[in-house]
């Protein structure tokens, strides 16, 4: 499989340099790391919001650095959590003295490395909090799993936490709204093809032309179920029903929806899903307050999509629609 790369080991490094070359005024890369921060970090008087995780999910994470969203983002190797020392460097660079909130997706690697980093930062007297996003309803949260994964709903958490911090709120408050968002968001995804990592150079899993994977994560993992290919409407119905079942919302509830592309999906197809999604949620008596469509949290070149629904109240709506100015999202 062909890729526009020079060397599979240099992908993350060169990607970050190319990103910096595109946004030289907004971004700064910490020396000798794969950490990107706001050019003006730390922003004095503001709680720092940081995130990070494996690479391959672009525009996540660094694409959401900027006013009203993230102060820093650490990029691990493709699909591999960043290391604790780099996470610590990031936390230090984003702390203005008001403390730092880490938005972590629920993967054991991410959680363990962020925890270690948090301990290291605490030793430097930085107040660090962690919120763990686990919006993926495909994976049951039970004793028999390591919990639900964090996927596309993470973007909403970045947005809400970033907006609250931009208001000048304290760490406690920022953490509270982030957790409120986490408690109210659910996602489920589908893959039509596997992604190809630069390192392996071949599809992570084989998926015949008449089958799809339901309940995939964002790391090229196989999903929870392999089924026969279905129409866009059938797929949307299936994903949306699972998501709504999990959220169990009252009629009339206002919601924010996201149809997220996995990287290799034409935008036209995402809109075809959105068309059906809006029919389904309206059939459930829900009120769409806003609908996002696009590539927010990808899996390299995977063809597929995820559907996210979040219940929103006045507070969340205000934070979600507050100004943001980042490479990947301008509100």
């Amino acid at each position, binding site marked *: 499989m062909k890729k526009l790369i020079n060397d599979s*080991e240099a992908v993350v490094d060169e990607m970050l340099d190319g990103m910096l070359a595109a946004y030289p005024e907004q971004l700064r890369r910490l020396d000798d790391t794969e950490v990107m921060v706001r050019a003006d970090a730390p922003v004095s008087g503001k709680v720092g919001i940081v995130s990070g995780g*494996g690479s391959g999910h672009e525009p996540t994470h660094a694409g959401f650095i900027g006013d009203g969203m993230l102060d820093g983002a650490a990029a*691990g*190797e*493709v*699909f*591999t*959590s*960043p*290391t*604790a*020392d*780099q996470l610590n460097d990031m936390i230090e660079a984003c702390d203005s003295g008001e403390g730092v909130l880490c938005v972590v997706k629920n*993967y*054991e*690697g991410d959680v*363990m*490395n962020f925890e*270690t980093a948090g301990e290291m930062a605490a030793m430097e007297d930085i107040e660090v909090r962690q919120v763990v996003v686990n919006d993926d309803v*495909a*994976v*049951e949260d039970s*004793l*028999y*799993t*390591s919990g639900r*994964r964090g996927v596309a709903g993470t973007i909403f958490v970045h947005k809400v936490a970033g907006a609250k911090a931009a208001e000048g709120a304290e760490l406690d408050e920022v953490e509270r709204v982030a957790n409120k968002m986490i408690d109210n968001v659910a996602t489920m995804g589908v893959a039509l093809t596997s992604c190809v*990592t630069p*390192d*392996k150079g071949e599809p*992570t*899993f084989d998926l015949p032309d008449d089958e799809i994977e339901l309940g995939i*994560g964002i*790391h*090229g*993992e*196989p999903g*929870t179920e392999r089924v026969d290919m279905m129409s866009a409407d059938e797929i949307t119905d299936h994903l949306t029903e699972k998501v709504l079942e999990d959220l169990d919302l009252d009629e009339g509830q206002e919601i924010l929806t996201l149809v997220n592309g996995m990287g290799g999906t034409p935008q036209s197809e995402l809109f075809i899903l959105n068309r059906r999604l809006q029919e389904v949620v309206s059939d459930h008596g829900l009120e769409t307050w806003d609908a996002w469509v696009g590539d927010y949290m990808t899996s390299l070149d995977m063809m597929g999509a995820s559907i996210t629904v979040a219940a929103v109240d006045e507070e969340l709506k205000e934070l979600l629609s507050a100004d943001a100015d980042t490479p990947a999202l301008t509100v």
Partner: protein
Amino acid sequence: MVDEPTQQEAIRAAAEAVADRLEDEKEYLTELDSAIGDADHGSNLARGFRAAADAVADDEESTPEELVKKIGVTLISKVGGASGPLYGGSIMSASQTFEEGVTAESSVAFAEAYLDKVKDRGDAQLGAKTMVDALTPAVHTFKKSIEVDELPPLTAFAKATAAAERGVEYTVPIRAQKGRASYLGWRSVGHQDPGATSTWFIMQELLEVADD
């Protein structure tokens, strides 16, 4: 107890051997991780252990404890993912058992401390289809062989390595409860755990080096 300088040499040689082996097994481990994970375990470990071997290669100053710690610290900062803190963090924290050098006793202590730390950090019990499944029988066998059966260390470690292999095989027919494989639910059954496999490979190399 061998001379200290010889211990350091052995540690450097072991690090080198492990790094070489993991480079050789990189594709195989990633293949295993493709089936039930995210296709990076091979490159994570190959990258990390190569850096670790390089980090200690020219270090003529450090004590055995310091060398082992350095390996752990390097893994923490080079591996990432779940296996980074598990391998790196546990090696780092268990390294203090070598304060007085590497002996049969301190090796048992290291093995126990390492296993405890992995279980503590990863919160995985036996049978969750993780590296813990290879590690536990290996550590139990090693400890018993030394402390109860009073076997020579090399023989004990050979038995421990064989036990690890049994653990690797045991991961195949069971359902994952931890790590990325757990997301697959029942579909994880029938696949071999990458982390258990790499644990066994590493032990094989340590055995080789110890044997020389």
